[in-house]
C-alpha cells in the first residue's frame, strides 16, 4: 500500500462563503512523517481536523486505506487515527491516568469498563512518553510539556489494538501545533519522542505547525499551506527553500543545512517587499 491517508479535492467553507481550505490533495504513505507548515490562518488546524474525521469537508473526500472516512464508523476511525489537539483542558479534575484511559473509548462497549488489558496498554503508553510517574497526579497540575506528553500517551492508547481487535500496523497520529505551549527543552523532548514513535513503532505522523525549525527537525516531508491552499510540497530539504519561506511568510531568509546532523536552519533577515501569493 502506498497511501494510507489521502485527501482529494478537499474544501471547507464556512458561513458567509469564505473558504478556509480549497483544493487540498494530499497522500500520506504509511510510516510517513509529514509536516503541514504555514503561517497562522493558513488552515492547518482545519486540515488536521478534516484528516482526523472530526470535521466533514464541504466538498472532496478523505480516505483511509482507500475507504471514505464518511462511510466509516466513528469508532473505527478512532481506532486508527488519533488526534492530539493543541491544548488539552479537561473541565474537571481528572488524574493523568484517567485522561490517558479515555483513549481506550473506541475499544470499549457502551457499558464496558476498562479491563486489565486496557490498563496495561495505558501504562505502556505512559511509559513510552515517560509520564508513568505522573499517573496519579492531577492533570491540571502538570506543566505544558507534561500535559502534551500525556495527551500523546492517550493517543497511543487509543491506537493500540484492543484484545479482540486485529492489530493495526497503520496507526496515524495527528498533532495540531504541538509546540505552541512548550519551552525549548520540552520541544526537543517532543521531537525525540515523535521520532522514536515513528521509527520504532511505525506510527505514521502528521504534524501541523508554524514553527519552521520544529518542522524541519522532525519531518521528512513538508506540505506548505497558505490561505487554505497548498503552496508546495516535497521532502523537507527541497520544500524548505528561501523562495518558499518568502512565499509562505513574506520573510527573506537564508536556509542552511548543518552537514553533520542534517539539521536544516532558517535564518530570517528581513520582511519581503511583496508577498508571493495574494489572499484569495
Amino acid at each position, binding site marked *: 500500500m502506498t497511501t494510507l491517508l489521502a485527501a482529494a479535492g478537499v474544501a471547507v467553507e464556512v458561513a458567509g462563503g469564505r473558504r478556509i481550505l480549497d483544493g487540498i490533495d494530499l497522500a500520506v504513505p504509511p510510516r510517513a512523517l509529514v509536516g503541514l507548515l504555514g503561517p497562522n490562518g493558513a488552515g492547518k488546524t482545519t486540515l488536521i481536523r478534516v484528516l482526523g474525521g472530526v470535521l466533514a469537508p464541504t466538498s472532496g473526500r478523505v480516505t483511509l486505506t482507500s475507504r471514505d472516512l464518511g462511510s466509516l464508523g466513528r469508532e473505527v476511525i478512532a481506532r486508527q487515527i488519533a488526534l492530539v489537539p493543541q491544548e488539552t483542558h479537561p473541565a474537571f479534575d*481528572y488524574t493523568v491516568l484517567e485522561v490517558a484511559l479515555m483513549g481506550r473509548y473506541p475499544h470499549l462497549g457502551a457499558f464496558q469498563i476498562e479491563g486489565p488489558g486496557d490498563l496495561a496498554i495505558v501504562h505502556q503508553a505512559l511509559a513510552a512518553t515517560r509520564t508513568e510517574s505522573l499517573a496519579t497526579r492531577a492533570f491540571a497540575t502538570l506543566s505544558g510539556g507534561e500535559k502534551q506528553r500525556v495527551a500523546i500517551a492517550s493517543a497511543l492508547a487509543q491506537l493500540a489494538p484492543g484484545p479482540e481487535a486485529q492489530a493495526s500496523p497503520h496507526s496515524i497520529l495527528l498533532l495540531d501545533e504541538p509546540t505552541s505551549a512548550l519551552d525549548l527543552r520540552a520541544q526537543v523532548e517532543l521531537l525525540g519522542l515523535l521520532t522514536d514513535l515513528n521509527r520504532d513503532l511505525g506510527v505514521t505522523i502528521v504534524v501541523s505547525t508554524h514553527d519552521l525549525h520544529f518542522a524541519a527537525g522532525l519531518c521528512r516531508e513538508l506540505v506548505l499551506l497558505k490561505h487554505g491552499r497548498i503552496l508546495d510540497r516535497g521532502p523537507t530539504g527541497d520544500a524548505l527553500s528561501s523562495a518558499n519561506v518568502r512565499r509562505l511568510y513574506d520573510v527573506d531568509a537564508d536556509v542552511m543545512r548543518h552537514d553533520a546532523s542534517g539539521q536544516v536552519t532558517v535564518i530570517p533577515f528581513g520582511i519581503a517587499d511583496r508577498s508571493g501569493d495574494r489572499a484569495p
Partner: protein
Amino acid sequence: MKPAPAAPAASLEVALADGDTRHVSLGRRLARVVVGFGAAALLALVLAPLAGSTRVDLLRALDPTIPFAANVDAQILFVARLPRTLAAALVGSALAASGVVLQALLRNPLATPFTLGIAAGSSLAAMLALTFGSALTLGGLSLVPFASFVGSIGAVSIVYGLARARRYGLSTDVLLLAGVTLNAFFSALVLLVQYFADAAETLRTVRWLMGTLDVASYVPILTALPFFLAAAALFAWIARPLNLLALGPDAAAARGVDVLGAQRVAFLSASLATGAAVSLAGPVGFVGIIVPHLVRIVVGADHRLVLPGAALLGAAFLTVCDVGARTLFAPMELPVGIITAVTGGPFFLWLLVTRR
C-alpha cells in the same frame, strides 16, 4: 505497537514514586461508591419517616390488626411522612444527577439544573396555573405539576433550538447564554403575572418558588416516576461519554464519541429529570450544585462514579432537609428550598474558600 506483557491479575497496581501502591480497578471503586453513598441514602430513607413533629408509635403504626382508618400512627407514617420522604429522595436524586450532567455538558462546574432556563419556564407555567387556573383540576389532580413540567420542557426546547441554530453541532456557549437570558426573561414574566395575582395567589406562588415537598399523596410521585426512570436509564448510558465531553468536543470526537448525539442525550436526560423534579416539588435550589461538588471531592472526576454517587447522596441530602422542613417550625411547614439554601449556601462558600 509491541504486544502487551502477560496479563496481570484482576486489578492492576500502579507503582508510585514513593513505593506506595493503589488499586485502580474501576469496578471496585464503583462498588465502593454505591455501597458508601447507598448506605447514606438507605439510612436517610429509613430514618426520615420515623422523624417528625409528632410522636408516632411505630409498633402501633405497623400493626396490621388495627384498621387503617382508625390507626392514626399508621396514617401519619404512610400518608403524612412516607410520600414526602419518597418524593424527597426522588427529587434530590434527580436534581443532583442533573447537576452533574449539565456541568459536564456545559464544561462548567458552576452549572446547575436550572441554568438552562428550566426553573424559569416551570415557574412561569406554575404561576399561570396557580393564578388563572387555581380551581381547575386535571382528572382530579391539580394543574400545577403538569403546567410546571410542560413549562420546563418548553423552556429547554427554546434554548435547544437557539443553540442548534448554529451550523455545527450544539454550541455550549449559546446554550449557556440562551439559558441565562431565558431565565431572566421568564422571571420578568413571572413578576408580571404576580402583579395581576391577588395576595393569596402571590403568597402561594412565592411559597412554590421556594420549593416544597408537601406532596400529600403517592399520586404525583407515580405520575412523575416514568420520567425519573427514563432519565435514569439515559444517565447510565451517558456517564462514560461525559468524561470525554469534558475534554472538549474535538478531543471527544477524535476518540470516536458521537458528540452531538451525546450532547443531545445529556440535554434531554437532564431536562426530563429536572422537569419532573420541579413538577413535584418546585424549583428546589442548591441540591444540583452542592451534591455534585461534594461527590467529586470524594470520588474524583470520573462520571461513572460521580453520577451514581450524586444520585444517592442527593436523595439522602434532600430527605434530611425535608425532615428539617417539617419539624423545625412545626406545625408550620418551612419550604425545603430554604433549608437547602441555608445549609448549602454557607457550606458551598466554605468549600470555595478552603479549596485551592
